[in-house]
């Protein structure tokens, strides 16, 4: 089965306008027959098109909270971003209580796993045989972008599973320890996500084996129900086990600054991420050790499914973590003393470079096509208006040469033809 994306299109609602077309960072969208078509080979699940669509025609394929199996032991895995969504929240325990009130049997904060990833990353950076700069692999959009477009940097990705995946593992282990009668299939782990990319991550088992996360629900889907479940007068039980580090991860720079290493860079927003990767690829960077990249502006708090404005969420998280200990989660006694546990290692070696932009397998043919593209491009107006259904005039020239579009789809070319015909008719008439 091919790669399962988390962005789908509601053809009924799509007007075929050019908002998503112009802004897709990988030029994966075309307008064909009056509506958008997403090229699955190029899409990196960044969710920009969901964010931009004025007609709400782009949907993300989250699992529905209502489809949660009632008879299973349900564990909520709240993304740390969730804690930044509430006015006047000063204690993460209210959120945890609320989730339990909603019917979850347990809650395992993903921020806990994030603190472990921070520790494992520190260990990883101490090695002297790793390609620098090490690039965070926590954002699935970045991982996919790197493997599709910056294949020479795949080895720079930190080979550690993302916090969500590790949280799933640890939540299951905890459940089985507390309830020895539970079997793996009796447990359902539910990640509460600020972004659709995590859906593709879990569905495509990008962790290498089967994902430890069974369902990915959208943060906005959970939000209102949770808000009601949180309205309790009494103080919550003391359950949160997250420190400052875990709650700093959702904002851009949080992951990197927790590493206690000054040679880091943190960039957010997909266009900025691409610019940074372009520079790292040509080795144009100041001695960097670690690079944190988040596809969403502001970091995970800027996820398209987050409810609150990312900059406000960032301030709220800062207020919540102010009086927390630095970190509350440490590798267990069963883990190796100064290495990354094998079960949490991320294996990217199978990632095959797909040559998604290549014109033709035969290089001679590809060169010929490139010459045709350049010749055709030189005759186009360079308005990048999108009326033809391609994002730019250059992309249109490529689409025509590759046989995916007709030259007459360009309204400027058509207008010129029309004017020429009119002129001819005029001459004939006189």
């Amino acid at each position: 089965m091919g790669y399962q994306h988390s962005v789908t299109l509601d053809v009924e609602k799509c007007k075929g306008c050019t908002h998503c077309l112009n802004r897709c960072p990988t030029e994966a969208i075309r307008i064909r027959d009056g509506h958008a078509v997403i090229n699955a080979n190029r899409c990196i699940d960044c969710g920009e098109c969901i964010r931009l669509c004025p007609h709400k025609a782009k949907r993300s394929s989250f699992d529905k909270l209502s489809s949660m199996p009632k008879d299973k032991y349900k564990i909520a895995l709240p993304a740390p971003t969730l804690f930044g969504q509430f006015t006047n929240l000063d204690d993460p325990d209210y959120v945890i209580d609320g989730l339990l009130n909603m019917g979850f049997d347990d809650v395992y904060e993903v921020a806990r796993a994030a603190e472990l990833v921070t520790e494992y990353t520190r260990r990883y950076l101490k090695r002297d045989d790793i390609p620098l700069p090490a690039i965070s692999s926590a954002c699935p959009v970045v991982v996919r972008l790197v493997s599709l477009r910056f294949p020479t940097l795949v080895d720079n990705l930190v080979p550690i599973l993302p916090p969500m995946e590790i949280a799933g593992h640890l939540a299951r282990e905890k459940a089985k320890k507390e309830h020895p009668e539970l079997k793996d299939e009796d447990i359902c782990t539910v990640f509460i996500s600020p972004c659709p990319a995590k859906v593709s991550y879990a569905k495509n088992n990008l962790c290498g084996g089967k994902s430890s996360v069974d369902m990915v629900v959208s943060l906005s889907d959970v939000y209102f129900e949770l808000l009601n479940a949180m309205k309790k007068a009494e103080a919550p039980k003391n359950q949160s086990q997250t420190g400052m580090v875990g709650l700093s991860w959702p904002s851009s720079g949080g992951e990197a600054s927790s590493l206690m290493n000054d040679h880091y860079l943190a960039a957010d927003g997909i266009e900025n991420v691409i610019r940074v990767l372009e520079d790292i690829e040509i080795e144009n960077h100041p001695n960097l050790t670690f690079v944190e990249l988040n596809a969403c502006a502001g970091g995970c708090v800027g996820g398209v499914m987050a409810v609150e404005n990312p900059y406000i969420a960032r301030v709220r998280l800062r207020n919540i973590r102010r009086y927390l200990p630095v970190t509350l989660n440490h590798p267990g006694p069963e883990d190796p003393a100064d290495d990354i546990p094998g079960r949490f290692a991320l294996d990217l070696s199978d990632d095959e470079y797909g040559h998604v932009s290549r014109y033709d397998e035969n290089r001679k043919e590809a060169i010929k096509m490139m010459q045709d593209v350049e010749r055709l491009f030189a005759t186009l107006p360079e308005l990048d208006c999108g009326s033809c259904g391609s994002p730019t005039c250059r992309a249109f020239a490529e689409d025509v040469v590759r046989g995916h579009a007709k030259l007459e789809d360009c309204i400027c070319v058509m207008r010129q033809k029309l004017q020429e015909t009119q002129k001819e008719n005029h001459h004939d008439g006189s």
Partner: protein
Amino acid sequence: MGNESLYYRFDVDGENFTSAGEASVQTKRILRRVGFSPDIIKRVSIAMYEGEINMVIHACGGVVELFIEEDKIKIILTDHGPGIENIDLAMQEGYSTAPDNIRSLGFGAGMGLPNMKRYTDSMEIESKVGEGTKITMTVNV
């Protein structure tokens, strides 16, 4: 080079430091479409990037020409800058004549020409003091 090769010409604006590196980004985009391996693309784009930076720092800009063939990529950098007095010296790692204001930006480490040589299969420098410099690099595929 005959009709077989794909030809591009990029002007490198010497007035605008931030535009240095644009030809290299464009080149990556083109080479990906022709289907070269990631390693080849990396080598060509690093060599070109270093060349662009050099032209901006030392020569008030210049021209980058790119010839793409099935089995060979050629880059010609031409400028009308001050020329290189001693090419052997300029090829030494760490040797640089970049002014202090450029160094303060993190450039001028004296690695430009050595890197260009390292990442290409052949490199020829023709330079006349007071007239300019022409560098021809080839990467064999």
